[in-house]
């Protein structure tokens, strides 16, 4: 077969063009590759309520089970061991120890990248379990200010929930619901939510805290008695018992 030189040159050019195009298109293909994202963002939002209303600080509009009118000035707490659970029993750690200050919105959001799949639930501990609650582990505030004194067992407060309430004579008194590991006893409250959480795409779960529930069920707490309670194992135990329904999960 006779091929003249012009044709040969023409074929070479076409070949070269195809080669370059294939390389170019290949690199483009890599960039726009349409594979599913292996990860999704889990957003965890911490939300605070009293009497089914969003928490509003410094306003005396809330009522507890004993009909005491109270306002809230401080709500700081730790949540720990936040895990997503898979159907096969595996767990994915979202956060080991997490601090929230509801007043200045510190820590009211967590974003965690996790494998994009369906999860069957979420678990957490309110407070800090004993195996994690080590004195001196926080060296800067705000977490360090949650210190639980060494003479009372050391570690860190679980919660500082403070405010004021009106007594029978209408005078105002402070209350301080401070819970924690008195004498190193683990009084964390463990929650397990069996709720499907579909993370094939980014999703948000909300951890709701219902503050009035700290004061009732099974123990109706008189706010007059919720002062200087850190060293009182009986009151610490009652708060822990009341905490069983304080947290709910919503999506």
């Amino acid at each position, binding site marked *: 077969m006779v091929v003249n030189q012009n044709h040969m040159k023409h074929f070479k050019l076409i070949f070269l063009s195809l080669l370059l195009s294939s390389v170019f298109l290949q690199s483009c293909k890599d960039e726009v590759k349409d594979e599913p994202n292996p990860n999704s963002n889990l957003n965890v939002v911490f939300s605070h309520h009293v009497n089914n209303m969003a928490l509003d600080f410094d306003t005396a509009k809330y009522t507890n089970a004993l009909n005491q009118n109270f306002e809230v*000035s401080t709500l700081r707490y730790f949540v720990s061991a936040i895990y997503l659970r898979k159907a096969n029993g595996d767990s994915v750690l979202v956060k080991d120890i997490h601090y929230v200050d509801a007043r200045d919105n510190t820590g009211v959001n967590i974003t965690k990248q996790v494998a994009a799949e369906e999860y069957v639930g979420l678990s957490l501990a309110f407070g800090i379990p004993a195996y994690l609650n080590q004195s001196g582990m926080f060296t800067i505030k705000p977490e360090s*200010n949650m*210190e639980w*004194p060494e*003479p009372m067992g050391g570690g860190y407060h679980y919660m500082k929930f403070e405010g004021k309430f009106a007594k029978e004579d209408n005078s105002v008194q*402070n*209350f*301080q619901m401070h819970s924690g590991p008195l004498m190193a006893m683990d009084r964390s409250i463990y929650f397990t939510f069996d709720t499907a959480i579909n993370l094939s795409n980014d999703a948000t779960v909300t951890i709701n805290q219902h503050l009035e529930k700290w004061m009732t069920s099974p123990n109706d707490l008189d706010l007059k008695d919720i002062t*200087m309670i850190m060293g009182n194992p009986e009151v610490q135990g009652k708060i822990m018992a009341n905490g069983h329904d304080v947290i709910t999960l919503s999506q």
Partner: protein
Amino acid sequence: MKKAYILTTALFFVIASFYFSACKDDKGKEVPDAPYVTTPYTLNIPASLLNPNNPLTVEGVALGKMLYYDTLLDGVSGRSCAQCHIQKEGFSSYKSNALAHINLAWNTAFLWNGQIEGTMEDIMLFEVKDFFEADMSKLNANATYRDLFKKTFNADEITYENTSFAIAQFVRTLISADSRYDKYIQRKISLTPSEINGMNLYYSEEGDCFHCHGTPLLTDGDFHNNGLDENPEEGRMAVTTNPQDRGRFKSPTLRNIALTAPYMHDGRFETLEEVIDFYSEGLKYSPTIDPLMKQIHAGGMQLSPQEKADLLAFLHTFTDSTFINNPAFASPF
């Protein structure tokens, strides 16, 4: 003569060309002076408390110390930082009631009402520019400082910013952590029975000093209305405009508290005994009283004379003689 002239001229050009060639690289571009190399200063504190834009250097800390003690900094009345922050008085001063410069590296809001928020550099910029109204022309006219700023920051000009950076470096190093209390925590020494009783009171809910003066810093760095007045001053409210902040002032550190009289934001108490009496039976209610003032309804903790003596003894364990005698913090002049 003509030959000599030609030789001299030629020699001049040779020397001149050699001289100028030293300022050019191979391509004929001018090369700036090599920057001064500084020596890193190691400070054993959490990295997050350091400013990556102002890394500590031996030169920077030394320069900051000079400026701290130098009245040249004051553009108006010849004051220095050290006149109101005296080392022997725990870097505070009886005459000025200035907050002590102790462990300020952990602070994020400065002054009694927290009007300056941010980093150590931010508060020092405020001090240099607004408090001292430093005259930069005076500093720039000083050959020693010009040389030191050049060697520290490679700066040709002394500015408010690099001056505050140098002072911030020095003040970051003012760390007090070697009191008798610290040694007790480290199990190196014992405390007396009275001091132990005072400590147990301090860390109890009955005494409850620890909520505002806890952690190794002996302060929460936060703002509280501790019941000084029925009609308190604005305090933190002057900054936030929030009425709930009326009467709230910063909790000072209790480190070296026995040396840092007078006490409270307005210096109303001259002795620690007066302070203890106040918390024992002198509290006054106001609408923004801190919830942590648990015994406000009783006017205070109602301590016995022995409890007061024990608490006072414990407060004295916070005195850090290493800190107040450390030559690294002393005047370079």
